[in-house]
């Protein structure tokens, strides 16, 4: 009964979405406020029904109703409750339902909090939102219905892919989807602006918080995913340039560019056409990401689903939305008035540079991800494009961007003073050279590029601090006044500082981990001692243990430093009987920002076990960086300017609101 209700709620949501995609547009055309307001009610009702549908699926999973195919295939009655819930989106059907639920959530948020939007703009935005929603409801109902029943229900389920039975999965996909789908709002706003043929600074002020929110979630989602891969897949890597990872990185790069260009548009009313294009591209890349992951065109770490009919359907959605919106753009973009002149060296100029590098970097990732697919389709030749390609293309493009990052906030709008900015960054420059010297002396004879990269990272961090010091007049005026000024700074300025510093922090982590990572791989017997980076790890022994839905072999290691016992680490190897699959549970020991990492391999005939031990210096900075960035985004989001709401635009909108 629950399954049928869930299914029915989903069909009703589709009906509502279809109404929402047409009626408000007619209302906008006829200037009928009542018809335009339909969008608001339908968006909220749609959210209600999708939420009901989602709750139904969660209930089915929690109660282990194996008469439902989706539950049977991905659940097991012995599975812990938390994984029963997270298992809902650990499979294709469930994750698509999560996707539309989040889409409906964002639509509902616009409907609920968009009261200060001009009525026709809101109607257009919600209508576009409903087009996307309708397409995905159809996709779910036709090709991937999670509520299908089995005629003869089995007693036990097939269990969830063991790799996915992890807390990381509870957080990673919803975060990522909040990011992906969040960009649908800026997309809808862009298409609405094109349909209306009108766009102004107020538009940018509405779009920015939504973009920022999506960006925060996407940043955290990617970081979470990377950390999950790092500890769960058991070989210590944190980024593999896997197509699925690239699929999430591309919207992030485009979204970061959008965040910055929307700033120019909001403050200076310039770069309108470009901002619109970026909004469209960002969401298109999110859709592409969904396509790559969900259609099964790639066989990679994340592609859980393989079914060509689905692939074709998503490809169709992709073509219609990307093609349609770009056609609309080509047709209508010239109607948008240009404005806001600026010199090449100015804040705007710096942000254009930022956009240029981010989008170009995004393009190289795009080529690296899709070229193998295109080549295979065209010539049948199979190639793989891996880390070397991206190291040679992506990294060189990011270096000038990172050098430019501290300069941007120090340049004035309209016309900036590069020399002045350079002078004010003197302290950061000195810090960077000091860091290079120290790093080089420390690792004398080692890698030459790494100290330079560390210097660059220090430059980015110190540059962000310099900018802040400059604004509060640190050391130039009495400290108490500086502190008062610091309190009075807009939160967006603090946000910029944290986000830019986060970039530098992540870079330090990346450089240290890749350059000074030490590892030990070998077969160990009980009482053997391995030493890695000054730590001695003694294998005490191995004990079998029974988990809720698996059996595991736990190895116990005693870790000591200079003969002093520090801690015990217990990596294990799990065997999931239902699927006959095994996973490796790595053990992590955090020391400051560095980590020791142990994962187990096979047991040999003579009782020795293959062991891989890594010491990863400052590895945690890789994820602290994005967390700082997201925190900066959050600060920026709480800025008064964005809470107060946008100023009322031209009279046309006011006239419409009077009719409300």
């Amino acid at each position: 009964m629950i399954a049928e209700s869930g299914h029915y709620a989903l069909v009703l949501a589709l009906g509502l979405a279809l109404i929402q995609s047409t009626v408000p547009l007619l209302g906008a055309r006829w200037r009928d406020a009542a018809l335009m307001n339909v969008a608001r009610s339908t968006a909220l009702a749609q959210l209600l029904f999708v939420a009901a549908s989602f709750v139904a699926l969660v209930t089915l999973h929690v109660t282990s109703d194996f008469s439902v195919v989706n539950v049977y295939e991905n659940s097991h009655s012995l599975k812990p409750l938390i994984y029963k819930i997270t298992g809902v989106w650990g499979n294709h059907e469930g994750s698509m339902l999560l996707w539309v639920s989040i889409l409906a959530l964002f639509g509902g948020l616009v409907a609920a909090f968009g009261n200060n939007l001009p009525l026709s703009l809101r109607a257009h935005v919600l209508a576009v939102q409903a087009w996307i929603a309708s397409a995905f409801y159809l996709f779910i109902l036709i090709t991937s219905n999670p509520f299908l029943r089995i005629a003869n229900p089995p007693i036990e389920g097939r269990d969830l892919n063991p790799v996915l039975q992890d807390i990381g999965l509870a957080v990673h996909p919803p975060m990522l989807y909040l990011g992906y789908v969040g960009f649908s709002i800026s997309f809808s706003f862009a298409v609405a602006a094109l349909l209306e043929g009108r766009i102004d600074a107020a538009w940018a002020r509405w779009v920015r918080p939504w973009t920022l929110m999506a960006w925060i979630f996407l940043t955290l989602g990617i970081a979470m995913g990377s950390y999950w891969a790092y500890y769960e897949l058991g070989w210590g890597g944190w980024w593999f340039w896997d197509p699925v990872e690239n699929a999430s990185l591309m919207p992030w790069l485009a979204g970061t560019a959008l965040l910055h260009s929307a700033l120019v548009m909001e403050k200076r009313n310039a770069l309108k056409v470009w901002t619109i294009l970026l909004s469209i591209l960002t969401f298109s890349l999110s859709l592409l990401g969904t396509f790559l992951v969900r259609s099964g065109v790639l066989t990679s770490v994340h592609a859980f689903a393989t079914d060509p009919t689905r692939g074709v359907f998503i490809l169709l959605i992709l073509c219609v939305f990307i093609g349609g919106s770009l056609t609309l753009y080509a047709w209508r973009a010239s109607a948008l008035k240009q404005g806001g002149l600026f010199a090449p060296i100015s804040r705007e100029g710096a942000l254009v540079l930022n956009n240029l590098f981010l989008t170009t970097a995004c393009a190289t990732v795009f080529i690296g991800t899709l070229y193998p697919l295109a080549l295979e389709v065209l010539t049948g030749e199979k190639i793989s494009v891996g880390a070397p390609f991206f190291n040679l293309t992506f990294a060189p493009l990011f270096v000038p961007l990172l050098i430019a990052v501290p300069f941007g906030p120090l340049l004035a709008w309209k016309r900036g003073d590069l020399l002045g900015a350079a002078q004010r960054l003197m302290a950061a420059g000195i810090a960077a050279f000091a860091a290079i010297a120290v790093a080089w002396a420390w690792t004398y004879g080692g890698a030459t590029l790494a100290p330079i990269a560390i210097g660059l990272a220090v430059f980015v961090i110190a540059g962000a601090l310099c900018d802040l010091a400059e604004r509060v007049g640190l050391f130039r005026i009495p400290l108490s006044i500086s502190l008062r000024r610091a309190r009075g700074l807009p939160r967006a300025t603090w946000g910029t500082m944290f986000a830019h510093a986060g970039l530098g922090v992540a870079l330090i982590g990346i450089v240290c981990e890749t350059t000074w990572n030490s590892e030990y791989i070998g077969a160990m017997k009980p009482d053997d001692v391995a030493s890695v980076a000054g730590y001695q790890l003694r294998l005490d022994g191995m004990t079998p243990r029974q988990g809720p839905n698996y059996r595991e072999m736990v190895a116990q290691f005693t870790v000591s430093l200079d003969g002093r016992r520090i801690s015990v680490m217990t990596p294990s190897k799990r065997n999931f009987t239902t699927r006959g699959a095994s996973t490796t549970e790595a053990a992590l020991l955090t020391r400051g920002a560095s980590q020791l990492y142990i994962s187990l391999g096979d047991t040999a005939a003579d009782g020795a076990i293959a062991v891989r031990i890594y010491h990863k210096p400052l590895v945690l900075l890789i994820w602290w960086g994005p967390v700082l960035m997201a925190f900066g985004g959050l600060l920026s989001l709480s800025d008064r300017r964005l809470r107060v709401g946008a100023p009322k635009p031209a009279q046309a909108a006011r006239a419409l609101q009077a009719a409300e």
Partner: protein
Amino acid sequence: MTRKQRRLTLIGGALMVLGIAAALVLNALRDSIVFFSTPSMVAEKHIGPGRRFRLGGLVETGSLKRGDNLAVTFTVADGSAALPVAYKGILPDLFREGQGVVAEGSLDASGVFRADTVLAKHDETYMPKDVADALKKQGHWKDDYGTKPTAQAAPAPTQGAVR
């Protein structure tokens, strides 16, 4: 600067960055992409020693030998040809004899494939896409290799790679 000059500066800058990016991409595509081959393709194409490629096929049953200190050797076959592979390290959880495997590395002077990466992108029934396609092309495909997920039995492919 006039409006026109400003615009030209912007466009010039943009073209320069795009040009650099294009050069980087072309350079990287020439040097750093890795081709996929099966043992019989290796024999046909006479791939020389030292050139990196991905080798895919089935691990021949009974060919897996473990040496000292995690060194392993096994044979990868695709029905018409076979190639010995040497690897040092921990094999992925899903590595098994008689099943599909993809290894990355290069041939040494004696014709042994020295793998530095072994990927096992499959579970009991699922095959790596590359391997399945190659086997199908050569007519060595057995239907039970890649039983398509049906409503009654749909194993999700478990995937992993080991460096």
